[in-house]
């Protein structure tokens, strides 16, 4: 099957664009110019064996950022490399580590990856280098150390390996608690490599930051002080994230010296179905048609979807379509799932390389995965949630300096539509901040227990773990988990604390969902905060495309009992939320309004639910519930509009509360863009009881807060400016779910995102006017400041 030659990719795209079937889709085409490589010279140069090995593998000369990395590594500094996909980031750590191995007597390194698959890939890469040079092969003793490693191999690695490739979970439960068996390794630990830094955000990142704190104190115990080398996709704050994650000073390398072929980046929006301009054609179908068209024209393409169900759907329809187009094309496309065995992955790689396979459909899992090399085109079906991920997916298209095509197909969702109207937002500097909160007391407590088990907690640990260390340690002592003797706190229980800390959750507060028809087999879990909204009694729970009826919710035992049932409706909870401010931390004035950051106790109860028929979206029932309210103590920010603003809105005959509600809805859509969280990670209400006047509260839906409300507080001006753009440019008349309407909150996991629900929608114009007034005010005060400072 012949693949598209360089010049004809543009021709393929032109023919697609001019086809009547695809009229009106393309909202924007960005031509990314090719970039020549910028090289650098190392002085002093690499040791001959290393440069020989690289030359034999066809690696080199080194790009400027790789040279900078080696230079920084040589000075003992920690640094983070933020360059594009396929820019040779791994050499930024492999070269320093190999150089050390060849020049020092003893040197050890941890390589930490978010997945086992990545670790395996990198082990292979190291092996390839060692194969070329005897002297490297003699010194390098690498191995993956994770859940799949056999017992005998584990002992051998502990005793002899010098490069250990692992993942945070293994470090957390399988290595650090057993550090005495690793004393040799820790004593000469010179490097800790952390790849895919941007994956360590939110809860996961907050937990991993604590794992690293524990690692550093163990290193201290054995007399080592490793330098950190991190690699990240493009986010706004890589250096800040790296420093928060590791606790050390980190330099930034962001100038990308690698070459780029020319790329076409296309923004593709399915057309409206009707004149009311509320519904669009299915994005999944559009993506499938595009995929089929590209493959038929000989363009090797990868499609990324947000949910497995969608990947399966697109794969199935595409391969059926291809079968009708031309014989032999039906098998030219394959789905890719996380959890494939290494052999299966190799097989796909091989088939892609040989051209047997022309298309792959995958969920985002692939972006953290295999070395597929480059393809000709990528299709991203629905904005994956972050600009960083979108670029990573787009980065899969492009071989060397050949032309490539990347397409983003929008869902009919607020942010997707916003991007379609504001492509420049996507292409200029990333607004996305990865946020972590390692000092969240609920996260910290678990790790302090683990730390006490590893080594007694001492005063020095306050520097590592933060100001809450003492208070939490005292609490742990009260609870008889630790015992303080002579200013050292020892673990005083027989159990193994690391086993009860899950790096991906914030506490052991999870509900299990069991299927009563299958002897209470566990079919899923949900966090305690979401449970009353998702599996309240009589709720319809969606799981892997099937509908389950919730028979009972046991809040004591934290179990939801469900049974599969064929229903033609789904349910939507009605929540009664209230908020009580506990403490103010910071306050500032913005655009003449008061903005505050603090701690709040959020209470909510599911008081009722609606039954809504699928597809027609008609409401077919309503029932009240009597569930106990939930409490959540967390971080919140609030915006208190001034009396004069409220007055001027009322004077115009509008209801300011509706305006605030619309703004609140938009903030929930927009904040994730700035704080790299999901919509379901934050909540918001309008409340007057705390401030005596209506205020918008945005809070983190996690005990103790995770930093999202805080980031919102910091960037309030930018957040509201984005809200204004959103509402101004939405093409609806009175307001819609894509702007001031209630955003799609917490869709059941595998639900087709094309479906959305109807809710009363606040007045669009009010929101628009209020925001405009605020932002005008903001720019006035800014220029006043500027003038004052002149």
């Amino acid at each position: 099957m012949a693949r598209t030659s360089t010049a004809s990719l543009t021709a393929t795209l032109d023919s697609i664009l001019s086809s009547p079937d695809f009229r009106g889709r393309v909202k924007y085409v960005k031509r990314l110019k090719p970039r020549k490589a910028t090289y650098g010279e190392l002085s002093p140069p690499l040791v001959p064996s290393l440069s020989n090995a690289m030359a034999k593998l066809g690696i080199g000369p080194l790009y400027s950022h790789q040279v900078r990395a080696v230079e920084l590594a040589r000075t003992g500094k920690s640094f983070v490399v933020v360059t594009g996909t396929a820019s040779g980031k791994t050499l930024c750590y492999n070269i320093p580590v190999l150089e050390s191995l060849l020049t020092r007597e003893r040197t050890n390194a941890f390589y930490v990856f978010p997945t086992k698959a990545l670790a395996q890939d990198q082990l292979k890469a190291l092996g390839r280098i060692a194969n070329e040079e005897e002297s490297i092969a003699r010194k390098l003793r690498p191995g993956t150390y994770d859940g799949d490693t056999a017992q005998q191999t584990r002992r051998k690695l502990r005793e002899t390996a010098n490069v250990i490739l692992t993942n945070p979970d293994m470090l957390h439960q399988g290595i650090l608690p057993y550090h005495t068996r690793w004393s040799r390794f820790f004593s000469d630990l010179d490097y800790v490599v952390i790849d895919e830094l941007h994956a360590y955000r939110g809860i996961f990142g907050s937990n991993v930051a604590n794992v690293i704190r524990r690692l550093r104190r163990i290193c201290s115990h054995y007399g080592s002080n490793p330098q950190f080398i991190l690699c990240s996709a493009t986010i706004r704050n890589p250096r800040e994230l790296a420093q928060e994650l590791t606790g050390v000073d980190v330099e930034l390398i962001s100038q990308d010296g690698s070459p780029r072929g020319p790329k076409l980046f296309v923004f593709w929006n399915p057309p409206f179905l009707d004149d009311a301009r509320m519904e669009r054609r299915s994005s999944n179908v559009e993506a499938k048609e595009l995929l089929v068209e590209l493959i038929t024209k000989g363009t090797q393409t990868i499609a990324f979807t947000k949910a497995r169900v969608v990947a399966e759907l697109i794969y199935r329809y595409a391969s059926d379509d291809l079968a009708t187009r031309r014989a032999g094309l039906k098998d030219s496309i394959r789905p890719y799932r996380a959890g494939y065995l290494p052999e299966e992955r190799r097989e796909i790689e091989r088939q892609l390389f040989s051209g047997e396979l022309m298309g792959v459909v995958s969920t985002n899992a692939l972006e953290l995965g295999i070395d597929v090399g480059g393809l000709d085109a990528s299709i991203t079906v629905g904005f994956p949630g972050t600009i960083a991920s979108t670029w990573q997916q787009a980065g899969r298209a492009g071989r060397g300096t050949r032309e490539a095509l990347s397409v983003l197909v929008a869902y009919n969702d607020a942010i997707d539509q916003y991007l379609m109207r504001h492509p420049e937002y996507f292409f200029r500097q990333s607004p996305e901040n990865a946020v972590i909160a390692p000092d969240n007391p609920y996260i910290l407590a678990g790790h302090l227990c683990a730390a006490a088990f590893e080594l007694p907690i001492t005063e020095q640990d306050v520097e590592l773990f933060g100001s809450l260390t003492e208070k939490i340690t005292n609490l742990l002592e009260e609870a008889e988990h630790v015992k303080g003797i002579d200013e050292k706190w020892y673990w005083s229980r027989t159990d193994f604390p690391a086993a009860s800390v899950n790096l991906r959750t914030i506490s052991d507060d999870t509900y299990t969902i069991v299927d009563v028809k299958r002897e209470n087999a566990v079919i899923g879990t949900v966090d305690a905060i979401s449970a009353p909204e998702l599996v309240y009694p009589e709720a319809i729970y969606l799981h892997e495309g099937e509908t389950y009826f919730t028979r009972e919710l046991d809040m004591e035992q934290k179990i939801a009992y469900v049974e599969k049932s064929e229903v033609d409706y789904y349910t939507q909870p009605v929540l009664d939320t209230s908020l009580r401010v506990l403490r103010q931390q910071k306050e500032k004035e913005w655009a003449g309004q008061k903005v505050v950051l603090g701690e709040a106790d959020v209470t909510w109860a599911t008081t009722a639910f609606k039954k809504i028929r699928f597809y027609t979206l008609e409401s077919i029932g309503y029932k009240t519930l009597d569930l106990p309210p939930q409490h959540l103590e967390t971080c919140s920010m609030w915006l208190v509009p001034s009396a004069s603003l409220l007055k001027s809105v009322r004077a115009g005959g509008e209801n300011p509360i509706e305006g605030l509600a619309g703004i609140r809805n938009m903030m929930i859509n927009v904040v994730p863009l700035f704080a790299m969280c999901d919509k379901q990670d934050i909540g918001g209400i309008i409340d007057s009881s705390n401030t005596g006047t209506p205020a918008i509260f945005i809070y983190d839906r996690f005990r103790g807060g995770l930093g999202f409300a805080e980031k919102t507080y910091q960037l309030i001006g930018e957040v509201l400016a984005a809200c204004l753009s959103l509402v101004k440019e939405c093409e609806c008349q009175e307001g819609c779910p894509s702007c001031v309407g209630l955003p799609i909150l917490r869709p059941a996991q595998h639900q087709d995102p094309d479906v959305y629900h109807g809710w009363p929608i606040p007045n669009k114009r009010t929101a628009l006017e209020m925001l405009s007034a605020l932002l005008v005010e903001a720019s006035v005060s800014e220029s006043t400041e500027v003038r004052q400072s002149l």
Partner: protein
Amino acid sequence: MKLSRKTKEALSNLIGASRALQQEEGISAEAVSVDEFLPGGVLKGKSGQIYVHEKLRSDVEKNTRRVVSLYRQAELNAFSVELEGRARELEILARTGFSKAVFLDIESTGLFNCPTFLIGTMFLSGDDFVIRQLFARDYSEEKCLIELLSDLLSGFSTIVTFNGKSYDLPFIADRAIYHGTRFINRMFHFDLLHHSRRHWRGVLPNCKLQTLELHVCRRRRVGDIPGSEIPHVYHSFVRTGDPYPMIPVFHHNMLDLITMSELLIELMRREGLIKMRSRAVEG
């Protein structure tokens, strides 16, 4: 490990903490301390101090004189036998002499990666055995415990244990690494478990020490503390300072040591190092 509701509530208060958290004053030292029940004294080492409880085997077991004389017999006979295979170890042990051997059994707070707190030792001294139990009264004394054990062992050339090759010695070595203290053990190590298996695997239901104790040594324990409770008892002791519950732990450890010494006799009898009329070692 679950954070109790109380802890959770406290943590909740903490993040909204405006009132200072009051720490309760630690419970003051109990009027009754360890040495009321387990006489001994404090032993100082480089890194601190530990408690040592000592008694004579003859205070506890009537048959001690007999046992000692059987050991002496074995030492003499050792030069006139030639044992083969694994049994050669017995020969070496006897030839080296039992005054150079020390029995060892540790009690710890778990299988691995956790502190040890009681190291029981027993050795021949004149015509009696001394049972010397080294005890870390809290976690901070463990380092000294290991150092003083090292010192003690340096006066001997053989260690006798039950499963010590897989458990006790690696455990101690691991804790030594943890504390950054040296523990080099080049002594000849005679592990009673390995030899017991040679004789009794398949014959007895299993080769646990207490099974052998019952069937081979003809001794039965009554009311002994279950091994699984020992860690909890120790943690509790560290917290509260109440020594009373610790007594059974010392007792258990001591019984283990005594049984080990009798098991050794039976092994030697089977290999012809000792000639006895019956199997029972009566006083």
